[in-house]
């Protein structure tokens, strides 16, 4: 534990990073541009790394610093690079005019989710030892819920992918406060898993774009119980 004034300063710095983290989660819900979504995700990952560094300094944990470093390299640098390699630039230039819900409604629901996250984490926070009680836990859960919400209301593939990645960021944001000494091999594996995730989804989105000519995956609704044609695929497929 560092000396008291420094600890207090680090704690408020961490609270600042947490506040900004939550703000980016809201912004991802509200942003129409695909490129903007991706940039917000990068900012969010930087804030996650910052919080890991701050907590690492506060508790003198080399392990948290390593987590921050892994995040700093994989998410803001490698993931956008993989996406650029797998998807065409045209995908980024897209704007999403019509979400499932309009943006003010979306933000209201997002706000409700954040409040819900705060109340849901109260019993957990009262159960853990004092040094683990941190704003990271409710903010992380809020980030997780907002990511899931993004995934639910978006129709464009890349913003949906950003939603998934933002969920993982949220889980980690809570995780760095709760479980500080997770083996480093696990952290590395989770980070590389994120890269594989982006690669596989990128390949899938490219296939969808080539086949259907659009990345508006939210509009793919042919597989429903009401439609009898699930077996009636196009015949030219075999050619």
């Amino acid at each position: 534990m560092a000396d008291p004034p420094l600890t207090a300063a680090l704690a408020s710095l961490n609270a600042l990073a947490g506040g900004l983290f939550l703000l980016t989660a809201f912004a991802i819900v509200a942003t129409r541009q695909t490129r903007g979504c991706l940039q917000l995700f990068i900012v969010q990952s930087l804030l996650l790394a910052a919080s890991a560094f701050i907590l690492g300094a506060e508790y003198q944990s080399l392990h948290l610093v390593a987590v921050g470093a892994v995040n700093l390299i994989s998410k803001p640098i490698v993931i956008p690079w993989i996406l650029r390699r797998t998807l065409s630039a045209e995908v980024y230039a897209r704007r999403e005019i019509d979400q499932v819900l309009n943006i003010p409604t979306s933000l209201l629901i997002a706000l409700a989710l954040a409040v819900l996250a705060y109340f849901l984490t109260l019993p957990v926070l009262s159960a853990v030892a004092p040094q683990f009680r941190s704003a990271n836990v409710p903010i992380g859960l809020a980030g997780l819920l907002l990511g899931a919400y993004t995934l639910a209301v978006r129709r464009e593939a890349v913003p949906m992918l950003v939603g998934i990645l933002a969920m993982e960021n949220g889980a980690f944001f809570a995780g760095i406060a709760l479980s500080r000494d997770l083996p480093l091999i696990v952290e590395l594996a989770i980070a590389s898993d994120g890269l594989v995730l982006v690669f596989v989804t990128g390949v899938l989105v490219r296939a969808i774009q080539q086949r259907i000519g659009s990345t508006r995956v939210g509009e793919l609704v042919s597989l429903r119980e009401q439609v009898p044609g699930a077996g009636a695929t196009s015949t030219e497929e075999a050619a």
Partner: protein
Amino acid sequence: MTLPAMLLLPLLAAVLSAVPRMRFVAPGVTVVSSVAVLSLASATALRVASGTTVFALRGVLSVDGLSALIVWLVSLVGTTAAVYSSGYMARTCAARPRRLGLYYANYNLFVFAMLAIPMVVEPTLVWIFVELTTLSSALLVSFENTQEALEAAWKYVGLSLMGAAIALLGFLVLFSALQAAGGEPYTWEGLVKAAPRMPPALLKAAFVLIIVGLGTKVGLVPLHTWLPDAHSQAPSPVCALLSGIETTSVLYVILRLLPMLDAALLPEMRDWVVIFGLISVGVAAFLILQVRDYKRLFAFSTVEHMGIILVAAGLASQAAHYGAMYQILSHTVTKSFCFFAAGAAVLTVTTRNIAAVRGLVRRSPAAAASLLLAGLAIAGAPPLAVFLSEFLILKAGIYEGRYVVVGLLTLFIAIAFFGVLLHINRMVFGRPSSETFQAQALGSHATAAAISDTLPRSCELILLVAGALVIVLGVYLPGPLHELLRLASDTLHR
């Protein structure tokens, strides 16, 4: 060193299949490696059944009763599906042989991930392998590259990864609960030992997050919506893996948490498991009645069976847990056979539309006979394995005095039984009308070019082998297998 070998073989096969020039040997390499893994897994299962825990690295790779059962089932379906693939994919993918390398590389990677889940004992590493099953099978689901297949793959990836993120938070909370209790390593065994000292709020939160997150991947209602899509659009041998064993190997992770609830004296959480399971069984039973695609029929039946296993595991008695393990065994063997039979039907009639298939018995007796056996077996007709396991579960429920649970379960199973056999009976014995011929002509599948009334040799072989297994397991359970099930059921409670 059998455990690392079992993991290295599929990895090696995946690498070999991915090499462009090797794609002609990829089917052979896959079959050889999966047969080798099956024999190693059988040897391991025999050793475990005789009472030893097999481990490669204590605290990292280790196999007990429950793990050995899952490992053996993964390698079994991995082998039958590999042999089946060699004929099935050669015929359906004849126009695009280059894609076969991609298929087998992903196939082996997928089997590798499923083998690793039960062997690894550190929960967060298990989470990574669960994630890897999603990522390696995503491109298998989209393999046929039709609009429907791509849509199914996207839904599958989206929902599974969403669930995985929730489960990740659950595992991190679980880790903090373990740290609060102190002193035990982060392994399944350490968690059970530390459970009495964990703060109950943390344990409950972790359990809820994990069962919701991984429940998505198991296909538990209400987050099951991706399952019938993915499990019907993938090539049939992949469906056999997805439906037969992937869901079960993820359910295994949830089952691993149950003894912690007993140790931490939280019996009411077990009731929630039962309720969660019952909802899945009920919803799936009614959805089975209204399907129009026979691969979706079997997919919904997977949702139903996952629910049954969860209900049985959620009950308190040893007998119910034995039933749950027996159900895992019978479901895996039967469901993989169902999709092999469905694949044979797809090859014969080139459509997945139930209404378009009438009187299959006149068109292709082999496909019709296997489809009929599959329908009877999965619905739970008397002398077959699923009937026995469901009977054991219901009996255990009655002994425990859980009459409402047993009543609802019986009702839902009966509805599903009726639904499955209604559709299958029409397909096999129904009178073909002019309308169906029209539908057949229109409703052709990606395999239209390969239309033929004879099945590939390897598919016939697997239909015979898997069908024989379905029948034999109904009347005879070998001693070591019984012992394995008993040991596995001990892992579900304290």
